[in-house]
């Protein structure tokens, strides 16, 4: 190697080592001041230095360096900075570079000094800002959750008010929401949207609040005229819920309006067909029919699950979205767990949908 290069090494306060034939590192520069803190007294140009014992970091880097030397590449390979401590506790930011010069394997170690602290300061600023951003995000998430809890409370209050007039139980509406949420999760919806559907689906019959008691609570079969009035409940519900800018209630309005629509277009109020019917409503329709069939009502006995599923299977393609029904059947164990956890009228236990 040229004398100029050696001279440069000496001036730059770096230590350069040549890998000799015995795979030992020979110091080929003067020993810089910082190196003296780590090496035995008397170490200087020409000394063999056991680097791996002095700098544990090099245990790792030398393996990479050998790849560079074996490839005879002249492109320097840098280790990235590391900080080592002298036995007295003084810290030194160092960096090693492996390079092949004139066929010789050279390892250069440099005290990064101020360069390191400048970089640390730059990174510190970046990270302080990132921490602040993270704190703000946590605060926003908490506030969003708080708003969401309030929205849910409002929705559940509305639901309770409508439930006082109907024979549907609180457990029924809760189950509808949980079944729907479970299916939404299976469809890969994000958790927030699936949670919205839990509330929105539960509110599907809220429009019944606008139906006269004489019709809503009539024990026998409805006349054609009464049925026409009853058919107004989806639109009443949608009208009630559409007057806000709350996404949860807007979704509930869609569900309310369309939960009596049918896949084949024979439903009401609009006669929508197939995917014209919002998916939230298509899901609700399936779980509502299932829950109604397998539970006892004042006007009917509970069907067995097998009988209910047989009947529902006949409604696929007419009443129900075939793909969603398939998903529903696939997830029947989840539906059964929800049924058990929220059975009527026993105490419920907590489950995760």
């Amino acid at each position, binding site marked *: 190697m040229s004398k100029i290069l050696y001279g440069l090494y000496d001036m730059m306060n770096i230590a350069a080592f040549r890998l000799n034939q015995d795979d030992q590192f020979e110091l080929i520069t003067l020993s810089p001041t910082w190196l003296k803190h780590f090496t035995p007294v008397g170490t200087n140009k020409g000394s063999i230095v056991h680097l791996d014992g002095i700098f544990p*970091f090099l245990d*790792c880097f030398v393996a990479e360096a050998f790849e560079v030397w074996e490839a005879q590449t002249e492109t320097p390979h840098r280790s*990235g900075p*590391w*900080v080592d*401590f002298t036995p007295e506790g003084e810290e030194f930011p160092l960096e090693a570079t492996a390079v092949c010069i004139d066929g010789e394997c050279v390892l250069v170690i440099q005290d990064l000094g101020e360069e390191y602290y400048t970089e640390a300061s730059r*990174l510190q600023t970046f*990270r302080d800002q990132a921490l602040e951003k*993270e704190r703000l995000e*946590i605060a926003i998430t908490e506030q969003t959750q708080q708003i969401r809890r309030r929205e849910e409370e409002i929705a559940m209050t509305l639901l309770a008010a409508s439930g006082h007039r109907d024979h549907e139980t609180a457990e029924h509406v809760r189950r509808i929401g949980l079944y729907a949420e479970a299916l939404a999760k299976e469809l890969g919806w994000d958790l927030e949207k699936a949670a919205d559907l839990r509330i929105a689906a539960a509110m599907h019959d809220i429009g019944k609040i606008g139906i006269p008691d004489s019709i809503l609570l009539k024990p026998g079969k409805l006349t054609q005229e009464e049925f026409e009035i009853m058919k107004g409940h989806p639109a009443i519900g949608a009208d009630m819920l559409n007057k806000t800018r709350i996404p949860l209630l807007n979704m509930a309005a869609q569900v309310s309006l369309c939960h009596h629509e049918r896949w084949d277009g024979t439903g009401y109020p609009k006669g929508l067909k197939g995917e014209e019917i919002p998916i939230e409503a298509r899901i609700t329709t399936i779980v509502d029919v299932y829950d109604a069939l397998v539970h006892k009502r004042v006007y009917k006995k509970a069907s067995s699950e097998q009988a209910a599923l047989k009947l529902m299977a006949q409604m696929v393609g007419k009443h129900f979205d075939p793909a969603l029904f398939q998903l529903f059947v696939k997830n029947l164990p989840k539906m059964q767990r929800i049924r058990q956890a929220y059975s009527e009228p026993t105490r419920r236990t907590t489950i995760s949908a």
Partner: protein
Amino acid sequence: MSDVNNKVNAVLQKKICMLGAFSVGKSSLVTRYVESIFGDKYHTTVGVKISKKELTVEEQEVKLIIWDLAGQDDLTRLRTSYLRGTSGYILVCDGTRPFSLKVALNMHKEAREYSGDISFVLIINKFDLQSSTDWELDQEQLSALEASGIEVLYTSAKTGDGVDEVFQKLTKKMLQEHNVLENT
């Protein structure tokens, strides 16, 4: 003297790595453990800081070479080659920052891919803030991790609580893994 006794008498040197997001307290934990001090101010780590500490686990003397790796963020990714030769690692997350758990688990995955099935522990640091409103970790998620076999420990670099125990526990695991100690 038996081989086992010989092994127990020699001082073993083990490399361990501290992994985690930035500002979770990796360097503070090392400083607390090695020097028994704590500074409240956050000082970012660039590259790697290497510290050494000797300890005794069940009569076996061990010299730990602790590689405190720079925390991961958008500018700094884990340089997996730093894991070369490591016998174990400590995944650190901050109990007040849920995102740091996600980062720790991602780094765990990367470490596993590079180093295989070596000893590790997951620690939730800043436990002194556990009763404050700042504590944000999802207990259910932690329970699920424990149920999956991940050992979760709680530390406070500030008070020193749990710090020595973490290094003791990891060292014991590493020694057991290398059959220096009997598995208990």
